[in-house]
């Protein structure tokens, strides 16, 4: 099925990141970019969106994706990576998981905020247009969230998600089914 052969193909023509669009002035110049830069151009934004869905805020998502790119670059330097996108995606998922774990620890040790104070996340999520969806995602377990986002947002087949998350296909099916059941009531009023 064509739906599963690429990673969000409908978004592959998404505009470049502002930082890079300033550097690339003509198509010829873009031809000269090395593999790594091409990887950035093609996938940075989609991976950033994936990270936003997984960690729930923009700043942390940026950190996660930048770190993933740096790791991939280091890996490419050491030896060639066959499927760089798969490696990047896995790095993003793993780093998002680590970020959520660190956040839990921080929350456990942080002092309680004042009742009327705005949370730091509110400012960081300005680019996220549907906060209620993000909030609903944050209320389901991390594994279920990863499975459902990779399946229904990134259009990955279950086998690939299973490989990426290091579990069986059956487990992925279970995660997705439970996530859909839990998201039903959470997204009930959302149009």
């Amino acid at each position: 099925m064509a739906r599963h052969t690429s990673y969000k193909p409908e978004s592959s023509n998404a505009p470049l990141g502002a930082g890079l669009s300033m550097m690339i002035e003509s198509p010829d110049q873009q031809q000269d970019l090395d593999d790594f830069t091409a990887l950035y151009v093609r996938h940075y934004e989609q991976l950033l969106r994936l990270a936003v869905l997984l960690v729930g805020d923009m700043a942390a998502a940026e950190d996660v994706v930048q770190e993933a790119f740096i790791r991939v670059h280091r890996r490419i330097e050491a030896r060639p990576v066959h499927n760089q996108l798969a490696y990047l995606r896995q790095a993003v998922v793993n780093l998002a998981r680590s970020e959520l774990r660190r956040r839990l620890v921080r929350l456990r040790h942080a002092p309680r905020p004042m009742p009327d104070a705005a949370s730091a996340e509110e400012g960081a999520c300005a680019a996220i247009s549907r906060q209620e969806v993000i909030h609903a995602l944050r209320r389901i377990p991390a594994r279920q969230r990863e499975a459902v986002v990779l399946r229904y947002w990134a259009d990955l087949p279950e086998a690939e998600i299973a490989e990426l998350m290091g579990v069986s296909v059956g487990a992925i099916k279970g995660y997705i089914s439970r996530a859909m059941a839990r998201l039903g009531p959470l997204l009930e009023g959302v149009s």
Partner: protein
Amino acid sequence: MNAPPPVSPERLARLLDEAVSQVTAPPGTFDRIRHGIRRRRWRRRIGAALFSAALLAGGSVTVLTVTPGGVLAGPQAVAPPSVSAATGSPNSAPTSVTGGAAGHAAAASGMTSAEAEPPGSMPTVRQAGLALAAPDGDQPAVTSAKIIVDLRRPAGPVGY
């Protein structure tokens, strides 16, 4: 009361897409990534240099300690300092390395400077220097490790 039905895949896909459709890479992201790569590369190089330096230093210490007659050989295995060899006969008086009034007096009386001065005093250092001085002027008489042992030892015939 009936529980709400699970969300449909199509609806979920649409909601997820809408949620992040406005997310774009902020300016300067690529530069930050390149900066991060460069910083890590330098950190790795400095780490490698420090590791090599530590390895070299460790190797040098090992060579010094396992040299025959070195520190690990113990006091018994080390031959007495070649003071007597250098100043064995009254005629072949020590060179200026010996120095000091006691040294000159000892040379005049046929004694070594070590015998003339009390153990553990400054002549011990001179003794080590004397041991280093080559009898024939070309070959060093002892290794540096041996000098370290000689410096730690009380001077004079008592220790031998």
